[in-house]
């Protein structure tokens, strides 16, 4: 192979699209021929610059990802990604008799409005998409770190998140979205050795509800042991001996539900806290 043979083949050689025999001939020529090496280097540099140029200044795909997730039709009707996760979360409650800890993070300790009423309010934001806000995520992560201690893999990966949650399936899907809850973020985590799903919802009034779910193996936190490192807590309400709501010194409100039978029961707990 001489230069006039090799030059037209260089780019195909560099694209790794050449048969082994010809490639070895071009390779041998390149080792001997400085001029062709210069050309090959220029080709490589052009592709490298191209890759760099193509990778720069790309749009943020988070909102697009949320829209795509929100468009995924599930079940017999179209569901949003919120529905996907929240329904699964509620299914989890129903299917597993799970330990469910619902945390209400209130800024000023104000009342939590009845979620079902908020869902029907004209002012309620449509719970149409996942909203991975940085600020919300940071808040959820800080809260999560304080409470759970250990992060699971792939935080912010709602795909993995949904997989984890959707492992719990049931033919009685119930929908927290109906309560006007809008999914902000979520990630898998552990409390102790027990895997949990951590979902953060936003109420129409802007306050956030942090929900930790586990399939099995979880247990109710007891008194000061609960997830807030021994700070003073006030018991707000009890419900049928199966759920307890607390508020701590930071205004974080929490309801603990055991063996919840339905979404309605979860909503009842949320209503109890106000």
């Amino acid at each position: 192979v001489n230069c006039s043979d090799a030059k037209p083949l260089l780019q195909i050689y560099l694209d790794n699209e050449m048969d082994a025999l010809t490639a070895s001939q071009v390779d041998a020529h390149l080792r001997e021929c400085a001029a062709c090496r210069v050309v090959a280097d220029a080709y490589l540099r052009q592709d490298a610059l191209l890759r760099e140029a193509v990778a720069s200044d790309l749009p943020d795909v988070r909102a697009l990802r949320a829209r795509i997730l929100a468009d995924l039709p599930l079940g017999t009707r179209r569901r949003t990604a919120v529905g996907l996760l929240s329904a699964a979360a509620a299914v989890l409650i129903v299917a597993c008799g799970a330990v469910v800890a619902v945390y209400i993070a209130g800024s000023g300790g104000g009342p939590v409005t009845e979620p079902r009423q908020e869902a029907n309010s004209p002012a309620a934001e449509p719970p149409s998409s996942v909203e991975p806000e940085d600020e919300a995520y940071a808040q959820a992560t800080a809260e999560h770190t304080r409470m759970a201690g250990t992060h699971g893999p792939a935080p912010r990966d709602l795909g993995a998140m949904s997989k984890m949650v959707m492992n719990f399936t049931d033919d009685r899907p119930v929908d927290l979205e109906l309560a006007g809850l809008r999914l902000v973020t979520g990630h898998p985590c552990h409390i102790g050795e027990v895997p949990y799903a951590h979902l953060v919802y936003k109420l129409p009034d802007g306050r956030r509800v942090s929900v930790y779910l586990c399939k099995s193996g979880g247990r109710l936190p007891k008194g000061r042991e609960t997830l807030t490192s021994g700070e003073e807590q006030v018991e707000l309400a009890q419900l049928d001996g199966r759920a307890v709501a607390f508020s701590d010194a930071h205004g974080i409100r929490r309801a603990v539900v055991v063996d919840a039978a339905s979404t309605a029961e979860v909503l009842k707990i949320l209503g109890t806290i106000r």
Partner: protein
Amino acid sequence: MTLFAQKSDDADEFARVALKHLDELVRTATRTCGKDAAEDLVQETYMRAWKYWHRFEPGTNCRAWLYTILFNVIRKRRGGVDSRTLSIETLELATVLPIAPPPSLTVSVFEEAFVRLPEDFRAVLVLVAVEGFSYKEASEILGVPIGTVMSRLHRAREALRRLLERKPSRKLGNRKSADEREAL
């Protein structure tokens, strides 16, 4: 398993397998069709992909499958225009356009030259040189013979070289004379 559970599993699988290619699809769509159109194109791609998800064979190349859908969407949106004719004409225009002298061969200058290429040329360049598809995969994605992929790729690279080569030469020429005038 109930319908709900089955659908949920499908959606879960779709989100896991297909959505991980979102960044790449947006990158390719952005560079091929521009930022304004890219998001809509990719969203429509995923809508179609979900619609035909039952036809996707697990274990096969989901990325190439998604790219094929993306370029179907692009072709459909372009609507019946013979892209090859358009490309050749556009290329002729691109190569004779007056080009301002660049400060140096930086990424931004390179990008400026890249966007002057016709859409078909950008597409094949991105698919092969950036996204790493083989000629054969690119031919399937673009729905053209492999020979067309190779010729487009060759011409695209040549066009890019010509565009880039013209810039420094103009720059040097202009600057030199300007400097000389200043010196005088």
